[in-house]
């Protein structure tokens, strides 16, 4: 096998030999069917003992060159000496806004390899190629939702909650009161983008969320008209008896064992979720039957998993209205920030805003940060970050984080005190502590998959 060092030395030449007849190259649309076939086998359903048909359309989409968040040349593929595709992963662009600031984020996705070629380090080469491409195109971070534990070896740490949801069996919904609005649902068309975006953007901007995922027209159109993937979800508009749009729902495109995902659930400006939640949940019953089953043996759809990341109000409403539900703990996004200084510099306006509304308004000084492996001096003048310079360690610093804790703090997932309690090797001087608490407050996020 070729070592990573060798690959790094000549990383821009593809196809790149990996030894034993394997080559790494970037994908083309002609690889789409092979990637789909590889994915169905790699994500084999052990319980049902069948290949996973669910990921085929997704893989095809990613390599079709029609996905607005992933072009064919964003997919790294490994082929064997017979040019058979044996491992692959896509580098999607994950739309992400951090307190109003877009952050270019790469998302390795559908990482898979054929069972017969595992334990040869092929995925390490694939991830390395994706990381280099991500850096080259200007991504400031990478995010992945994948196999627990596995991605730590590539510099990822759990840093953002993801997919906490309420599991609601629709048959057990309380009956609708006679006075409740009569809500119906309709799948969107491209023409509905402005209407949908207004509701979705209000939802993500008015709930005190730190990071959210904005929709673009191109992605919306892809979902509404082109996507084959059953891993994505479709926006639906909710209308009342006067044909007025009162809300929206993002509805998963697959029924897995009777359960359908609902990653988004919001109401239009001027509408009240307390009034509309129950009618909207009832309306879901009418459209659930049309969601395809992953396997024919699966049950008819009877339950929805409504995603409640970022303190979604449905959680409280279910309690108020006695809607039976079971809360499911969140999954988490793995995050990798390779260049901490560049990342901090990019969000400097957000940091200035936080300082301006705090006791540190007008702050001037230097904050010296160590990650035990690298150091940074952040210089502030009149409440603005003016430059970041590297610090040679060992040096006197104001705060130390283990490398894996940086993203957990700056992405608002954990407070400084929580980090310190969990990892006593997080340390901040008494004077730096309140400044750090202002700069990086704990704050929830709602970072949707954009599949």
């Amino acid at each position, binding site marked *: 096998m070729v070592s990573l060092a060798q690959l790094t030395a000549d990383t821009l030449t593809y196809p790149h030999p990996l030894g034993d007849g394997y080559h790494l190259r970037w994908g083309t649309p002609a690889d789409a069917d092979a990637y789909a076939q590889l994915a169905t086998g790699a994500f084999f359903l*052990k319980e049902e003992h069948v290949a996973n048909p669910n990921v085929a359309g997704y893989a095809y989409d990613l390599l079709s060159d029609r996905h607005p968040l992933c072009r064919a040349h964003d997919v790294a593929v490994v082929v064997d000496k017979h040019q058979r595709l044996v491992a692959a992963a896509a580098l999607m662009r994950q739309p992400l806004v951090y307190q109003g600031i877009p952050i270019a984020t790469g998302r390795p996705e559908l990482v898979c390899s054929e069972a017969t070629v595992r334990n040869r380090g092929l995925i390490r080469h694939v991830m390395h190629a994706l990381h280099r491409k991500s850096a080259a195109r200007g991504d400031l971070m990478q995010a992945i939702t994948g*196999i*627990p*534990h*596995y991605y*730590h070896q590539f510099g990822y740490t*759990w840093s953002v909650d993801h997919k906490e949801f309420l599991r609601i069996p629709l048959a057990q919904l309380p009956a609708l009161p006679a006075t409740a609005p009569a809500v119906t649902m309709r799948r969107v068309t491209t023409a509905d983008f402005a209407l949908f975006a207004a509701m979705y953007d209000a939802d993500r901007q008015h709930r005190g969320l730190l990071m959210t995922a904005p929709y673009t027209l191109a992605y919306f159109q892809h979902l509404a008209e082109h996507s084959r993937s059953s891993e994505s979800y479709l926006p639906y508009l909710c209308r009342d008896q006067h044909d007025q749009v009162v809300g929206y729902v993002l509805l998963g495109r697959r029924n897995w064992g009777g359960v359908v995902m609902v990653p988004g659930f919001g109401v239009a400006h001027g509408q009240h979720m307390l009034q509309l939640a129950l009618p909207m949940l009832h309306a879901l019953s009418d459209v659930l039957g049309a969601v395809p089953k992953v396997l024919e043996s699966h049950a008819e759809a009877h339950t929805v998993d409504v995603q409640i990341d970022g303190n979604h109000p449905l959680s409280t409403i279910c309690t108020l209205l006695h809607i039976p539900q079971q809360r499911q*703990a969140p*999954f*988490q996004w793995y995050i990798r920030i390779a260049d901490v200084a560049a990342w901090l510099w990019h969000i400097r306006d957000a940091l200035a805003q936080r300082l301006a509304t705090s006791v540190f308004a007008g702050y001037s000084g230097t904050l010296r940060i160590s990650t*035990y492996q690298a150091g940074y001096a952040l210089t502030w003048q009149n409440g603005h970050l003016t430059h970041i310079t590297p610090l040679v360690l060992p040096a006197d610093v104001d705060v*130390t984080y*283990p490398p894996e804790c940086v993203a957990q703090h700056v992405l608002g997932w954990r407070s400084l*005190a929580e980090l*310190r*309690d*969990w*990892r*006593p*090797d997080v*340390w901040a001087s008494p004077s730096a502590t309140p400044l750090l608490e202002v700069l990086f407050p704990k704050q929830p996020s709602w970072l949707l998959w954009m599949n």
Partner: protein
Amino acid sequence: MMEIYDARYCEDMGDGHILKWMTQPHEIESYAALTSNVFKTDAQAPDNAFIAQHSREICASDHPLGDTPHGAIVVAPDDTVVAGAVLQRMPMDYAGIRLHVGRPEIIATAESARRRGYVRALLKLLHAKSSARGDHLQGITGIPYFYQQFGYRYAIDYDGYATVAFADVGPPAPLHAITLQRATPDDYADFVAWYDADRLQRGLLATTPIDASYFRYIMGTSQSTHNWRIYLALHEQQRIGYVIIGRANWDQQLVVHGCAFTRGYGWAHTLPALMQALAHIRSDVVIRDPQIHEITGVRFILDSQHPLFTQLTYGVAHTREPEYAWYVRVADVAYLLNTIKPVLERRMRHSALAGYSGQSTWSFYGEGVTLHWDAGTLTKVAQARVPRNGEGCDATFPPHLINMLIFGRKSVQEMKEWHHEVWATPTCKQLLDTLFPKAPSWFHWLN
């Protein structure tokens, strides 16, 4: 082939440097010289004679926590020690079960010999020796972050800190005044009665038992400023409790490492009296730092649950600092669980799972362990070969993270909120919650 814990073991580290066990008096002296240089307070400061003295004491044959050979060293071609560490014995009381802890300590590398992997090599020897002598775990309170790479995780509470100035506490009511009398080697029985009551009756999980030999050593033989002095507290000529004090200063404070009084002497009354009594004995404290001229207050380094910390919140000016934690390494989880079996069975007996029978396999992503229960009795604990990603197991934990659970620092739920790979079936989660309830510890240094 010679085992690496054999006192004769040595290994070529390249460039004429040899890894070996420290067995010779001149090696101990060279190691002491190394520590005195490495642990200087700053580059311009003179060598640290206090740590050199402490290094010699730990390596002396009469140290009750020492072992032979005392530690591991890397020697240069000129026979000077350029890196070294000792392995102390630390007794631990885990809910009534005595555990043996190996404590790598005074780990030092000459500046010119760093980044050559010497500490990794030293720890390899110390871990092997610790394991060979039957230690259940290793514990370190050392450089933050550094020791994670050797399989250590922050798993046991390590003391809370509060600083109080003498000037900020008013005098006690005359009726409550106490005096402190330095204990003698013969006062062990009185001391240990109060000390054991203090550590055993406050719901603490892991504590430090102090036996007579160690007590007599520090009250008689030891000259190290890294050790304690123990005082008995007197009220109206009656002994009412104990106070453990560090022999040396910490900045402008004297350090209290332990204190408790007979029932009836509540902290509301005794705190002012204790502060006054401590002010009276402050001249006993060795001031190691020439820049410090006066002891102006007390630094309490006690377990985070100590009632004194609560008392401070009622009108006493003080500063608090976050707790640290012990790094813990458990190389053989099955061995540890087998040893604490009576505790696990007791917890099971008093839980909703009383009478439980079944088998439970836990994956640590590479290694695993299986517990067999029969009617509430833990019949077998064994290391298990498990699939790489824990498929089919009843619970999964990232490597070494279970240390936090076993030592009560975090619950399964808390671990899950931080590490998505922490997972358990509903039955196993109940089992884990039952076997390993979250509990504070007070496990302090014995030097």
